[in-house]
């Protein structure tokens, strides 16, 4: 038969893009790479995974080389019309049973060691953080400090953090690829995952267990900060809402975008010393990849400026209070705690940046921005009651943005 040479070469050519791809992946921009390993847990897993990949690639090369060699060497040609008949070879077969067993021993031993190391009891002085999964957002509680927040979690570098994982509804899974492995949140169970963050950084977190319509949109942000900054953050979170104690009601001061035709204001407001004192991650130092880039659905872009003081009054009578807690204002527990929502970098569980335009759109029509969201479209009439007006929504957004 003809064409064997061509066929063989096309096989190699087919592999070429894969090799190119592998190289690209190694050198490329992969912000959520599991090889980041920003904790001891991460280093342990990383070392094991590298060993597995190394042995795996060695076996891959061996098998594929033998296969390609056999294909090239033993193809039918005029000289070898009758094959030498063999039915098996006991020595060979024992050898290739034994060698994989030895390789696996080199995997099994460090695996079991790592299992027991990463699943040992957390140190007694570990920081306890309760993680509660909701369809589709994350609640974080620091019982030690009596702090409740959502979708953004601050961790002190150098101190063990013990996550206590529960779910309010279906299963979820808590995953920060750059820091550690994942652990499921299981109904009627309490799970644990602990690690010690070892470097300052902002990381993406994901829900890794399929949990319904907005599984893909159930994200969170992780800020590993210095012990000092963490103390500052906690102290700030422990206070009531900063608003209205030190309120500046001009829209520009709160980062609201001006309406069309209004005088141009800077897109982002320089941080004031007071804001820095919140201990939150400085906005201008956010890595590109932890800033959400989800586009707004059509028809929801609105830049009407709002008045925070009016918004504060509207909030108290709006449906918002049924689901959200703002310390001293409301006590809803269905949605995220909003006491310091203005100091978060994102809204809607890491789906949109926390700015005026996105807040307005979110309040107006959350289900359009996040499929299946339990938050009603407050811009539309709900069960006979008229929806909020655009002005009311803009005011509430201004109020929320002011809740540093």
């Amino acid at each position, binding site marked *: 038969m003809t064409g064997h040479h061509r066929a063989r070469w096309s096989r190699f050519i087919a592999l070429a893009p894969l090799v190119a791809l592998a190289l690209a992946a190694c050198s490329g921009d992969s912000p959520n790479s599991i090889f980041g390993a920003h904790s001891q847990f991460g280093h342990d897993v990383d070392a*094991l995974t590298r060993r597995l990949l190394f042995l795996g690639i060695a076996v*891959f090369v061996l*098998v594929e080389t033998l296969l390609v060699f*056999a294909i090239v060497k033993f193809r039918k040609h005029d000289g070898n019309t009758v094959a030498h008949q063999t039915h098996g070879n006991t020595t060979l077969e024992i050898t290739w049973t034994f060698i994989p067993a030895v390789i696996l021993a080199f995997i*099994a031993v460090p695996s079991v060691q790592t299992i*027991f190391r990463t699943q040992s009891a957390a140190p007694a002085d570990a920081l306890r953080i309760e993680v509660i999964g909701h369809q589709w957002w994350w609640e974080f509680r620091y019982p030690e400090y009596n702090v409740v927040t959502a979708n953004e979690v601050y961790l002190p570098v150098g101190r063990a953090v013990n996550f206590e994982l529960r779910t309010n509804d279906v299963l979820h899974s808590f995953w920060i690829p750059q820091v550690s492995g994942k652990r499921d949140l299981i109904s009627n169970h309490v799970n644990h995952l602990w690690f010690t963050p070892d470097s300052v950084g902002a990381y993406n977190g994901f829900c890794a267990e399929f949990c319904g319509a907005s*599984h893909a949109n159930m994200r969170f942000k992780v800020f590993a900060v210095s012990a000092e900054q963490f103390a500052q953050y906690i102290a700030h979170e422990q206070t009531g809402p900063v608003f209205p104690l030190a309120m500046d009601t001009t829209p520009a001061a709160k980062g609201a975008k001006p309406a069309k035709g209004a005088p141009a204001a800077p897109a982002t407001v320089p941080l004031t010393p007071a804001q820095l004192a919140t201990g939150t991650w400085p906005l201008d130092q956010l890595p590109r990849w932890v800033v959400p880039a989800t586009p707004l659905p059509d028809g929801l872009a609105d830049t009407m400026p709002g008045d925070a003081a009016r918004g504060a009054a509207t909030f108290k009578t709006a449906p918002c209070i049924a689901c959200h807690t703002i310390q001293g204002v409301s006590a809803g527990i269905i949605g995220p705690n909003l006491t310091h929502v203005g100091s978060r970098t994102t809204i809607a569980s890491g789906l949109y940046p926390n700015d005026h335009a996105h807040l307005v759109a979110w309040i107006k029509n959350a289900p359009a921005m996040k499929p299946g969201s339990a938050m009603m479209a407050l811009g539309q009439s709900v069960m006979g009651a008229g929806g909020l007006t655009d002005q009311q929504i803009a005011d509430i957004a201004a109020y929320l943005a002011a809740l540093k």
Partner: protein
Amino acid sequence: MATIVQPPSVARHQARYETGLLSWLATTDHKRIGQLYFYTSLAWFLVGGIEALFIRSQLWGPNGRLVTAETYNQLFTMHGTTMVFLVIMPFSAAFFNFLIPLQIGARDVAFPRLNAFSYWVFLAGGLFMNASWLFHAAPDAGWFGYAPLTTKAYSPGLNIDFWVLGLQILGLSSLAASFNFITTIINLRAPGMTLMRMPIFTWMSFVTQFLLALSFPIITVGVTFLMFDRFFGTNFYTIAAGADPLLWQHLFWLFGHPEVYILILPAFGLVSEVLPVFSRKPLFGYNVMVYSGMLIAFLGFGVWAHHMFAVGMGPVADSAFAIMTMLIAIPTGVKIFNWLGTLWGGTLRFTTAMKFGLALIALFTIGGISGVTHASPPSDLQQTDSYYIVAHFHYVLFGGSMMGLFAGMYFYYPKFTGRMLNETLGTVHFWLTFIGMNLTFFPMHFLGLTGMPRRTWTYDANQGWTSDNRLATVGAFILAAGTLVFVINWLRSLKRGQPAGNDPWGGATLEWSIPSPPPDYNFAELPHVTSRTPLWHGDPGPGPATYPAPFVPAKVPTAAEAGITLPSPTVKPFVAALGLAVSFTGMIAHKNLALILLGAAIFVGTLYSWLLTPLEPEHH
């Protein structure tokens, strides 16, 4: 053998069943049932493939808006459910049906009517599951259907009802078929066909039937609990009533892991038939191949919780399941090396079937190796539920199962139809599939290792996932093009393919000793078997000078001329399956009691009549 003269009434009755639609509804011939399985699976393969194209198109770019999140969840759920239950399993079933009796030298399976029933129930299950699309209520909780997402509290619609009932129907089909084939292989082997002389495909199928018979009851229990929760208000998985959702996970994976071997062992069997014929050497280490298949199946029941390392089972359970899982790599590795041993020193001829067989070795190896990387729990905690897993199991199920099934299809098409598939189109199909498959699934390793979770409808542009997703989407369309070539080749060759004689490839086993396609009675005289390779007589020789071996037309006598009594055709299995379908439709139609009872009455009544009718026409 005495000639049996049938009374005219019986002959007339049978003639009605020989052609046309009725002949298919009433057939009890394992070869025709095999064809029904094949064409039905092919149709579902196209449906599942179209679902995959939607998924890949949605993920072509960041924040894609081709489909909604809800539709996306339906698409990936149905893609998985379809490819597992409606494609790979029944493609394998097509081969069980068509080949097992031929390979063991039998005239049919042990229970021909039960065999027809299995097919009709499978068809009903597939149609039932997919009818959900018509109501915009396709199942949407993943093929693994984790509780409590599947409970009424979190999935109030019909979606999960379709899934639960559809799985029940399909489970019935698989269970009935498994008992049938176990009985067939144990009881109907030709004289001299000892167990250790059985062709390796039959061996792997035999092992698979035990896996089916032992694992499907487990999923049936799990799904029945869910059905009772959803339809009758029980609390097996009701969180508010204190249920433990891990019950479902254990039941599901205790089925789900053996299921993986149900999907792969038949393909291993097919490749183990193809490689020796085109290497002109017997299978290297036949005994070890048989024992390793049995060992894989046995260990396959002890590794289920490796799907649950992120659940937090504790270090002892994690270690135990990790070690069991690593052990299973040993018999699997042995198979790979024995295939290489089969090739070694042979005279390889690269037909399309051989190309697909070699591709299985090349690609399954990748899936097997990536499997070992998540047999280690700490490493798995970074891999599970990420795209790395999607890459892994597609290398196993596409690179393994589908490549093996394609090898089998090209190899057995002549036996199936009496004609050859076109080798040029076959080569085009092969290369499009080989390239498309690697382009689709290899980048997914990198997506997973760079943090992309599975089952996600959308992703952001700044996560570094865009280019790998683009490659995967391009690959999926190349795969689709290859599949199109395959379908064209298949249909075109039915009429225009080169005629095939008994043995176009120079095969070794009994199926190659009879005409292509085989007469309805298979063997005019039951063969007497004295070796594993009865047609090679100890030496395969060089094989035909060119493929196919020259076709020599021969007169094939009819069953009546040969004096062979065949099972009577009957529509009763079809009607019984229809009764089941009516009952299940009653369940989905808000527990419509009238329909449920009507279906049950049809089912029970038909079974009665079936049991009271002899299998073969009565001799006068």
